[in-house]
């Protein structure tokens, strides 16, 4: 059995990619399954999707913890998620990046294909939706499923949902990616940190589920505990504040959905970039253009 794990961000199409891969496998006569991990997160948040492919009927229903193939749709995830966790040393990886495989550090040394899926998607479908391009690269690395079947699956899935023309363009993205994928080996310099969660056993759950503000083994629980969730890793652009221009109207502070703009005693602002999702509302509402959105993840002050 082959187990595949996709890492992407909400909105990038990781779930569709897993489904198209499963469909391609079925076209080749395999049994297959595909499903997403349902978290609470919304658009922009790190998400996972899974696929399994086998000659026999698949009875396992759990998430994929030790993938044979790892697919990373967004390079920035390497810095925030232990994406390489559980990847078998005999496994393979496909990464959306402009870098060479040798420059990628997954924490596990495996055969690795890299491709600039974002660039290809912008070229062929005119939108940074990278799931189909990455499938083309996957066909190069994971030789069990042919490019032919991947293209057919894309035509079926995307054509049915978004129309024939869209199917053609998405298949084209996959074809180009297949040709441009660079194959090599990635490195294993980084330490894979285990993500910590506290899940109570039945006898640890308080009556009525009412949790007091509390910390267990360094993990916060109860009211206010979401502060341990650094959502700033979601952003792709960053607000830059020019204090000299600010007239202290507080509009940005009021309008930021994250509460990551801090209002100082003198009503000037300060940014807590650990949580800024880069939505750009603050720059939009500022009447004097004291805030400018800059591409990429930055921190100032």
């Amino acid at each position: 059995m082959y187990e595949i794990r996709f890492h992407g961000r909400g909105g990038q199409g990781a779930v569709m990619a897993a489904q198209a891969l499963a469909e391609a496998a079925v076209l080749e006569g395999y049994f297959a399954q595909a499903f997403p991990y349902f978290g609470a997160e919304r658009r922009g948040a790190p998400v996972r999707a899974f696929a399994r492919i086998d000659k026999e009927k698949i009875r396992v229903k759990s998430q994929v913890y030790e993938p044979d193939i790892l697919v990373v749709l967004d390079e920035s995830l390497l810095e925030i998620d232990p994406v390489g966790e559980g990847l078998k040393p005999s496994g393979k990886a496909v990464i959306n990046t402009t870098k060479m495989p040798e420059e990628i550090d997954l924490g596990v040394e495996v055969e690795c294909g890299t491709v600039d899926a974002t660039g290809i998607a912008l070229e062929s479908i005119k939108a940074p939706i990278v799931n189909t391009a990455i499938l083309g690269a996957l066909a190069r690395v994971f030789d069990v499923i042919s490019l032919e079947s991947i293209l057919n699956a894309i035509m079926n899935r995307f054509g049915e949902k978004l129309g024939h023309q869209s199917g053609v363009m998405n298949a084209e993205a996959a074809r180009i990616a297949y040709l441009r994928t660079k194959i090599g080996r990635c490195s294993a310099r980084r330490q894979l940190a285990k993500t910590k969660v506290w899940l109570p056993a039945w006898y640890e759950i308080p009556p009525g589920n009412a949790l007091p503000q509390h910390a267990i083994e360094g993990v916060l629980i109860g009211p206010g505990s979401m502060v341990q969730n650094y959502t700033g890793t979601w952003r792709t652009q960053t607000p830059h504040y020019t204090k000299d221009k600010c007239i202290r109207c507080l509009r940005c502070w009021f309008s930021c959905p994250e509460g990551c703009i801090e209002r100082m005693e003198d009503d000037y602002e300060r940014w807590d970039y650990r949580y800024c999702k880069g939505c750009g509302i603050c720059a939009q509402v500022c009447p004097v253009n004291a805030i400018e959105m800059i591409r990429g993840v930055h921190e100032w002050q």
Partner: protein
Amino acid sequence: MQEKEIRTIKDLSREEFLTKGHGACPGCGVAVAVKNIARVLGKNTIIYVPASCLIVFTALYPSSAFKWPFLYTAFENTGAVISGIKAALERRGKQGVTVVGMAGDGGTFDIGLQALSGAAERNDDVLYVCLDNEAYMNTGIQRSGATPFGAWTTTSPVGKKIQGKREFKKDLDAIVAAHGVPYMATLSIAHPNDFVRKVQKAKITNGFRFLHVLCPCVPGWRSEASKTVAIARLAVETGMWTLYEIDHGVEKLTYKPRELVPVKEYLQLQGRFRHMGEDDIEKLQNWICEKWRNQFYEEVPVPPCKLEKVKKELILDEDPLHGP
């Protein structure tokens, strides 16, 4: 200690009661609304949230983004549960606690309407907030009674025969008002001072209070994250959303656009209306113009309302059996 009255955003607390780190989409209008309501309500508050985006992005056991005690039971119960929390507090002699329920439009307009009506009719001392993002967003954008005419959702799709939702938005505020509640108001996140003043009023009024906030939703409205507040403002300027309050029976419009902006400008910023043809846009525009007349008792200057000035006839008996 007497708390300071909140009249403008300058009076808002620097302390946050909806903390950072919640999982809403970048640019979420619900998050903007809830965070600022929380800043007004302050420390002594208990919150109930039914199934909706809000519960999913703020409270997944064992973590929570609210610094308040937080309760959750079922989708249809907001009105009933907040009444129950208040009754329990009263039984225990606890005073000065605001009990607030925050439900989505699905949980308010449709599925929670009976519990809302019950609490309003009993005039229970609670605050009900409807976070109106005009569809069931948490389960992937299905139409609700709050979805506007013409909007695409997964259950009001766009095809050859039907192009988006065919029904107009339910006038929930009129339904709530008909209960004769002590205080109710509509809010916009693009009018901060009006927003906080109304929340403050709702906080200090006794009995049943109802706040209705329009909350643009990035994936559901297919809009740009940075435009959330701009779209909320255009909703008011085009008359799609009216800012008013009813305080102990006294109705007051709290903001009147200088002139009515054509609804097209509002629709253009949102993918959910992209398919709308001229006919449908005109239909929606006429609906707004009619609403404007009823609200402001005046005709709308010619554009955007092309309607001929029909004088409303008083029809005493429309029963076909009794003839014209």
